[in-house]
């Protein structure tokens, strides 16, 4: 499992494209927002949290179809299935790599970009925390969606359609925690629920993803 993780991480870092794509997308979304909303600082402050969360979510979504696609095309996925390593572990490793290359980096990047959107001073910690606790759920749900659509030609659009409704609770709780934090309110409750969601996803979704892979590989 560690080997799969290291291999995928090395591939993601060295092949270019996939790794930077999500981050560049996130960056561009945030930079373009003021042009669309207007340069008014007060207005930007209101939408800052929402834009940062939507940007992170879309950036995670953008890189999902790569999670299994390349391994599926060149047969690596079948080899992995035959290797004796449980498919659940493969799904977990893939989700972990996806999180490290998108979620973790987005979490670090988001507060910096918050400056551009005039995020309220109290909002940086809640934003960072909510992204840190919320993005694992995004990666796992996305990996499940990718496992479901791996055998389908041009599954990218379908993947978005399947995954977006599943993202709703994560987005609501994450953005709510960050928004409450930015407004100076107590934000523990949504944050705890968000952490519960992520832990639940970590516990359950690798099994669902592996079940989907088994069906496709049959």
């Amino acid at each position, binding site marked *: 499992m560690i080997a799969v993780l290291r291999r995928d991480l090395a591939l993601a870092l060295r092949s270019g494209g996939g790794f930077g794509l999500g981050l560049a997308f996130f960056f561009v979304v945030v930079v373009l927002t003021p042009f669309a909303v207007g340069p008014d600082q007060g207005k930007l402050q209101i939408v800052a949290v929402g834009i940062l969360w939507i940007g992170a979510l879309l950036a995670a979504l953008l890189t999902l179809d790569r999670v299994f696609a390349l391994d599926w095309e060149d047969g690596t996925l079948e080899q992995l299935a035959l290797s004796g390593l449980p498919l659940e572990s493969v799904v977990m490793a893939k989700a972990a790599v996806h999180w490290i290359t998108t979620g973790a980096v987005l979490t670090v990047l988001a507060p910096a970009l918050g400056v551009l959107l005039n995020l309220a001073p109290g909002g940086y910690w809640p934003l960072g925390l909510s992204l840190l606790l919320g993005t694992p759920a995004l990666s796992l*749900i996305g990996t*499940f969606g990718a496992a*479901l*659509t791996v*055998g*389908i030609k041009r*599954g990218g659009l*379908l993947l978005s*359609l*399947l995954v*977006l*409704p*599943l993202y*709703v*609770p994560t987005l*609501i*709780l994450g953005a*709510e925690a960050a928004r409450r934090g930015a407004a100076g309110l107590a934000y523990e409750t*949504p944050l705890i*629920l968000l952490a519960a*969601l992520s832990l639940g996803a970590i516990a*359950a*979704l690798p099994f*669902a993803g592996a*079940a*989907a892979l088994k*069906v*496709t590989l*049959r």
Partner: protein
Amino acid sequence: MSIWEYANPRAFMGWTGKALPLIWGLGIGLTVLGLVWGYFFTGDDFRMGSTVKIIYLHVPSALMAINGYFLMFVASLIWLIRRHHVSALVAKAAAPIGLTMTLIALATGAIWGQPMWGTWWVWDPRLTSFLILCLFYMGYIALWESVSDQDLAADLTSILAMVGSVFAVLSRYAVQFWNQGLHQGTSVPVVTGERSVDDIYFIPLAVSMAGFFFLFLALTLVRARAEVRARRLGVLIRREQMA
């Protein structure tokens, strides 16, 4: 004889063929009765005027939209556990009907909301949950359509239905957490046994709900029968090509 015998495709075609006229009759009869009763033989509401009458379409369609999803969940579960093909086909057949019911509920709600709340749409928990339900139906149907191997599609959509149901419930509570509602409470509080709607309105509403239930059942069975026939046809064509 166990209950599973009815799920044998041949037995399924047999008993549904006999039961369908009755179910159709009940569905159409009760729906027409409920709607005509509700529209022409009940008075206008004191505050809402005649717009109250949209309840006879809105509540039954919303009821069947949710129960349709529940039916999909149960049918998918039976497919995953017992691998009855008819079960997978029923889940497939129910999805577009459930989606239609969801759209009817959303549309009638918007038409009622415009004069009553002064807006076509608000981000109220119930409305939002229904919009998300609509997305779930669309994703489910799209997954069925995009996989050509029927058994593979049945497996994948069943897994989606399992995970989707969990997230649908999660979304419902997350949405309540996110925004407080404008939508009134339930018209039919089953748990408490009380009535929030007067009997004059409630009886035609109950008739209409029963009518929608049988309509949904009839439509699902017709679609499932069509699927069974399509499969048989596919087998015949393949056999022809082999010979």
